[in-house]
Every structure is written in C-alpha cells, then in structure tokens.
C-alpha cells in the first residue's frame, strides 16, 4: 500500500517539473514573437505574420501527419478554400457582405467539412494512395479557383478581406495572427497530450494493438480531420487578408510542400519541432535572398536529408532526456501484490465460450470445430505444435478473423465476429506474439493507451482542456504508473519504448492490457524470450491476475510454465483438440506426449 500511495506524490512533483520544462521553449518563442515589433521593421512584420499564419495551419496538420502518420501532402487546397471562402463572404459577391470576424468561423466550418471529405480515403487507403488523393484534391481546387470566375474572379482574382482597426496596421495584424497561432498551439497541444493524441500515435505505430484496446480509427481520424480542416481554412482567411489580393497563383503547390516538410523536419509526434520547422522554413528563403527561387528545391533536399539521415527530425535532437544511458543491469521485479489496489471493477462471472469455431486459410483448416471455455479466474493453457491453430484461435476471439462457422460468446451474449475494436468494452484484453508497442512513446504512455476507452471526456473537452479531460488524464496517469509498478517497470516509465529490452516490452504489454481491468486476458506466448528468472516472476504475476477473477487464456510453448500455473490445458493439433484436461492428465496423455511433448 505504501508504495502505491507514495508513487503519485513523487511523480506529481516530477510532472510539474517536466511540464514547465516542456513549456519553456514555447514561452520563449512567444516572448520572442512579442518583442519582434520593437527590434525590427515592417518587412519582418510580414514574415512574422506569414510564419504565424502557416503555423495556424501546420498545428492542425501536424496532428494528421506527425501524430496519426497520414501523409497529407495537398493541404494547400484547404488554405485556398479558406482564403476564397473568407474573401468571397466579405466581398459579398455571392451573399450580402459579412463582417470578417463572422466570415472566418464560416470558412472554418467549410474547411472542417472539406477536411473530413479529403480525409475519408485515409480510413481505407494506404500511405501512397492517401498522399495521391490529397494531391489530386489540391490539383482540383486549384483548377476550380481558376475556372469558377463568377465567384473567385478566375485568374484576375479577388480582394482579400480587410480587418478593422486596430488590426489594419502591419504590426496590429501581426499580433492578431500571433494570437491565433498561440491559441492553435494550445488547442493542438491539448489534443496531443490527451488520450486522443496517444490514440492517434497508437493507430500510426501499432494499429492492431490499438484496435485491441478499443480505439476506433474512423472516429479518431475524422475528429482530427475536421479540426485540421477548420484550422487550415482559418489560416486561409488570415492569409488572404495578408495578401490583400488573391489569385490562384498565390496558392502554389510549394506551400503544401512547406507545410508538409515543416512537420517532417520538426519530427513526428512533437509540437515544438514542427513549430521550429515552420519558422525556419518561412524565414530561410528570406535571409538568403538568392535562394528564394530555389526555396522548394531546398525544402526537397532538406526532406531527403531528413528521411535518409535523421528520420526523427528536430524533435529527436531536442530530446536529450532519452539520450541518457539506461542502467544495463536492470531487472524486472513485478509486485503482483499491488494489483488489487489498481483494480476498481469487480470481476464478472461469465464464461468465455467458443462453440464449433472453424476457420480455413485457402485449403488449410487452421481451426476445425473448436470448443473451448474459459471461466473467470481460471488459467487456461492452449498448447500444441507450430501451426496447430493457437494464435489463430486468439485472433478469432479478439475479432481479427471471422470464423466461418461457430460462435464466440461471453456468458449468453454472442461476441460480434470480426470487430476487434469492440472487444475492449466487453472486457477482453490481449497481448501479442511479438510485442506491439509504440516505439516513439514512453513506457508510461504505452500503458496509458490501454485505458483509452475509460476516458470520459469528449474530443471537444480534450481540445479545450476542460476539467473532465484533466480528470481523465490524472486517472489514466495514476493507474498506468501503478500498473507499471505491478509489472516492475516503474523506473522506466519515462523512457522511450524503443530503447527497452524485449522482455520489458512483454511486461509493458501486460500492463497495457491490465489497464482495462479485463474480465479475460489472452496472452500470446508471454514467456517467449524471457529468462528463467523472468518466467518465474511472470508466473507469479499471472497467478495474481487470475486470483483477482480474470480468466486467462495462455498460448505458450514453455511446457513447464503451462503445467506449473494452468488450471486447465487444451492441446491443439492441426486445428483440432487433441486433448483437454488438468495439467496432470495432459502430462501423461499418450497422444499429446507423442505429438507434442516428446519423451
């Protein structure tokens, strides 16, 4: 008990220090932006304003490219859309003229709608396809802007909106745009540091695991596409006013490239990095005037260099915390006894039942008419030779495969076939044969992913950092830290997961699964690659989980572990049950001994 209550207090002070350290560079940039008017001339006001406007767009796009990992390369289209929408509404050549402050939100709404439409393909298409579809959209918007003369003025163009005093001077407008940029930074940081931001990274780097924790990719992506679309269109409105007069020529594809590359130079999953990237790319051609014509070429070279030499971007350069060497003699010492204090839900009393489940791949019957039952609190071992259908069985239960025949039920309720994202709500969690971990996130964040569906706050609440969202964060952080303690890894909570050892990743996966307080936990070869000491500790941990009422289904090749901890064992061979019973029965079962155990 003492350890669990002591940990949060210690971590809170550390959190505060961490947060202020994270905030410092943003405050520094903001302060520099505030001072700029007093140390420079109107020319720099223009460049500063431009950087601020670009950042309004990039801060939203960053969630798509940097966090969700979707290569949206045509975002100049949404800037164009916002610029024309605002200008047309203010000029009143279609509707009665509107005030610019009324036109901007409307442009934002239009941008959000189109952002979602452009984003829709990302729900199904792979990287290059999605990149192409955004590129295609950009081409089309440019053509429409040119051809729809009655509204956009065609090649002649249209006057940009004018802002009233005090925003009608260069520096007045500069401050307005910096204010917009600051608000956008705050909004996107709120999302990035909420369960939504973590879920985006989870979808990017470990999509299968994200589904198992109940993260719904479509909802998550549409939310950020709406948000990024709105910001891009608002940036467009501001951009149009800065230009004072817009033609389709103002929105070259080079701008898209600038936005996109600013994020990649900045680094994925970071906010500070892309912000610096945006500033650098905006200022760079100005300082080196002869380079202006070659700016896109320069961006492209930078992109190539970043991709080939430094895939982490600026963010990795700044991440000095993760360059400190880790202790090499560290051991995983789980504290299973603390498990009871982390769990709030009481265990269910329903049995997980498979009835007559059959699944073939081509002509191979991977599992054939399989019946299986896992009771709450039971440790059920699933063993058999390679290719006997063990992992396939887990995948059918978690909904990655749809059984051709048979049902999977929880008590009397039949589980939806082929819907992996619904399993978490039913209290079924799992780990994977090869740990599916987000390498770029810390161990703590990886564990927090497991509790994503327990969050109460909506996307909007998270966006505005309303109390419910802050409560979610507090709850998830506390629980994840406690569970890291249970699996014995709390010392590594803030370390990037890709720096950890294989065995540590296995325990992180278990901690992530435990975030759900699952009624059933499916473990796919949890002991693979563990040392014998670690296997003993794993056994104690598994026992503690089962004592709490969770039913475990354990696929494993370590016969000793299986016979040591299991209450029941099912042996599969060629997709069929060869034998089922207590470990003592199985150990002496003739066919099992000859087909699998040997001896």
């Amino acid at each position, binding site marked *: 008990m003492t350890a669990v209550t002591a940990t949060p207090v210690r971590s809170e002070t550390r959190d505060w220090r961490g947060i202020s350290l994270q905030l410092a560079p943003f405050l520094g940039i903001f302060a520099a932006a505030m001072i700029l008017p007093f140390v420079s001339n109107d020319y720099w006001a223009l460049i500063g304003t431009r950087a601020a406007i670009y950042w309004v767009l990039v801060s939203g796009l960053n969630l798509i490219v940097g966090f969700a990992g979707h*290569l949206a390369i045509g975002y100049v289209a949404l800037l164009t859309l916002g610029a024309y929408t605002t200008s047309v509404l203010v000029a009143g050549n279609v509707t009665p003229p509107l005030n610019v402050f009324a036109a901007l939100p409307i442009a934002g709404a239009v941008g959000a709608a189109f952002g979602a439409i452009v984003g829709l393909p990302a729900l*199904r298409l792979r990287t290059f396809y999605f990149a192409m579809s955004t590129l295609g959209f950009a081409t089309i918007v440019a053509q429409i802007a040119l051809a729809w003369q009655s509204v956009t003025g065609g090649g002649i163009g249209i006057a940009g909106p004018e802002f009233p005093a005090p925003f009608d001077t260069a520096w007045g407008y500069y401050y307005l745009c910096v204010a917009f940029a600051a608000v956008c930074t705050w909004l996107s940081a709120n999302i990035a540091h909420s369960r939504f931001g973590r879920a985006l990274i989870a979808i990017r780097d470990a999509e299968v695991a994200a589904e198992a924790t109940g993260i719904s990719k479509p909802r998550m992506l549409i939310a950020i596409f709406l948000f990024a679309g709105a910001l891009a269109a608002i940036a467009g409105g501001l951009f149009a006013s800065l230009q004072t007069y817009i033609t389709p020529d103002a929105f070259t594809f080079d701008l898209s490239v600038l936005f996109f590359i600013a994020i990649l130079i900045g680094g994925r999953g970071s906010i500070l990095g892309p912000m610096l990237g945006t500033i650098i790319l905006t200022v760079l051609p100005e300082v080196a005037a002869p380079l202006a014509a070659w700016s896109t070429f320069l961006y492209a070279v930078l992109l*190539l260099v970043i991709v*080939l030499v430094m895939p982490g971007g600026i963010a990795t350069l700044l991440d000095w915390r993760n360059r400190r060497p880790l202790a090499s003699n560290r051991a995983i010492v789980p504290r299973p006894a603390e498990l009871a204090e982390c769990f709030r839900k009481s265990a269910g009393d329903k049995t997980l039942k498979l009835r007559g489940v059959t699944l073939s791949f081509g002509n191979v019957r991977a599992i054939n008419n399989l019946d299986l039952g896992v009771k709450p609190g039971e440790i059920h071992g699933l063993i058999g030779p390679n290719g006997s259908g063990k992992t396939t069985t887990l995948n059918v239960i978690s909904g990655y495969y749809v059984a051709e025949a048979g049902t999977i039920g929880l008590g009397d309720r039949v589980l939806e076939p082929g819907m992996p994202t619904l399993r978490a709500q039913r209290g079924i969690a799992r780990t994977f044969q090869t740990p599916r971990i987000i390498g770029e996130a810390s161990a703590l964040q990886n564990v927090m992913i497991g509790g994503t569906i327990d969050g109460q706050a909506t996307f909007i609440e998270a966006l505005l950092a309303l109390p419910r969202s802050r409560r979610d964060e507090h709850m998830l952080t506390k629980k994840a830290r406690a569970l890291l303690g249970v699996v014995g890894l709390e010392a590594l909570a803030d370390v990037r997961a890709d720096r950890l050892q294989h065995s540590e990743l296995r325990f992180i996966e278990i901690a992530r699964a435990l975030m759900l307080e699952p009624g059933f936990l499916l473990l796919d070869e949890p002991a693979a690659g563990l040392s014998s000491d670690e296997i003993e500790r794993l056994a104690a941990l598994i026992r503690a989980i089962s004592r709490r009422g969770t039913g475990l289904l354990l696929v494993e090749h370590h016969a000793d572990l299986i016979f040591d901890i299991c209450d029941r064992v099912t042996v599969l061979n060629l997709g069929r049950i060869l034998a089922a019973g207590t470990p003592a029965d199985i150990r002496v079962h003739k066919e099992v001994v000859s087909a699998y155990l040997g001896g």
Partner: protein
Amino acid sequence: MFASIIASGLAAGAIYALVGVTYNTMFSTSRVMSFTAGQLAMLGGVFGSMFTLKMGMPLLAGFLLTLIACAIIGIVTEFVAVRPVLKSLDQHLYVLSTLALALMIQQVAAIKWGTEPQPFPRLIGWGSGVWDEKFWLPIAACAITIAGLEYLYRRTLVGRAFLAIAEDNFAARALGLPERNLRVASYALAGIIGGVAGFSGGELLLAFFANGALLNFYGFVPVALGGLGNNRGAVIGGLALGLFQQAANFLVGGIFSSVAVFALFIAVLLARPQGLFGFSTARRV
C-alpha cells in the same frame, strides 16, 4: 465532336496508361511507388523539345537522347530515393524520399526550362483533324511499349528474371538472381517508358514543367483502378480514364471533369482498395 472526344480521350488515356506502366515497372522489382513516374513523362517532353527544337538535333537523335536522359533519371531515382529506404519498406519512407526527388526534378525543370509551356516539334507530319499525329502517336507508342514489354517478360531471360523478382523477391535472390542489378535495370526501363510517354505525348501536352505533377496523379489513377503491378489493368484503366475525362470535358466543362475524375478515383478506391483487377492478400495479425 464524338470523333474528337474519342481521339483526344484515347490519346490522353494512352499517356496516362504509359505513366501507369512506369509506376508498375518500378513497383514490380522494388515494391515502391515513386512520385518520379509523372516527372519522367514530363521530362520526356521537356528533353524532347530541348534536344530537337532548342539544340536543333535530328528527331531520331533527339528521341534517343531523351530516352537515355530519362533512363539516367530512373537510375538516379533508384540510387538516391529507393535503395536507401528499402530496408524499412514498412515505414513507407519511400513516399517521402521519392516525393523529395520528384520535387527537385520539377523545380530544376521550372527554373532551367521556364515555367511557361513551350512548343514541341511535329514529329512525322502524318494526318490531320482527329487523325492528327498528336492523337495517334501516343496510342501507337502505348501499343508498341506494351507489345515490347510482353515480349520482354515472356520471351527473354532478363524479362523472366524481372517477373521472378516481382513474384517473390527472396526466392529470386535464393536462386542467385542479381536482384540489385535487375532493380536498377527496371528503373532504367521505367525511365525509358516514362520518356516515351512524354515524347509521344509532347505535341498534346507540350513541354511544360507542371505536367509532372498532373501526370503523377492522372497516371496513378489507372494504376489504382487497375490494381498495383497489373499492366493490363493500367492500360484499360488509363484509356477508360482518358475517355471519361475528355467526354466530361466536352459535355460538362473542364472543372467538372476533374472533379468527376477525382470523385471516381476516391469512390473506386473506397469500395475496392486493391483496385478493380487486383487481389487483396495482406494478413495483418
């Protein structure tokens, strides 16, 4: 009008199909889709016009030099943007590296060649009206290229080696095929095909740096529709796209035709992400 829709549609479609084949040729040996495909076709036009009009070379010499130049760009693509990222294919870094290279090519073309479309010479001078060579030349080029590729893939050892690598890279390497050299060769071949597309379509599209981005998209649509790596699908898809686009162009006007193409592209891909003639085989867990 009907005849001119057919003529311009098939001509544009043949160019799209050739760019699609360029994508496929690069994809088959490397599993990489490269943004340079459309740029190669753009360069076919720009180099062609530069060698023949600006430098005044004979047509045949200009044509061959264009193909050589495009083949070199193809090889450069392999060395600069593909080989370094092949190790981590699953991270899709090739999208970024080939995009970077494509942007460099486009920017150099824009600065060195100029941002205005420039004329392309008349090559043969046969035909007028709907039988003008600017319409039938791309179609003929497409037909000859496809026939040549079929011959290469079915009758020659090198072609069979290409197919072996496309089918199963590891098995091909285990058999002792020089996988790396064949990949370089396929990128050179892709460069040549792109060059042919640009050269034969030069009179239709002119020598214009912005054609690269346009052909990147319109050449990718048939690949996406026809299924990745499927040349037959790319040709059918390309011709259908050209006809559809030109018909829409004549009937409802330019903007709506591109909107229609885009909508079609998205709709088909959402319904069948593997393309109309493709198969889905991926296993995720």
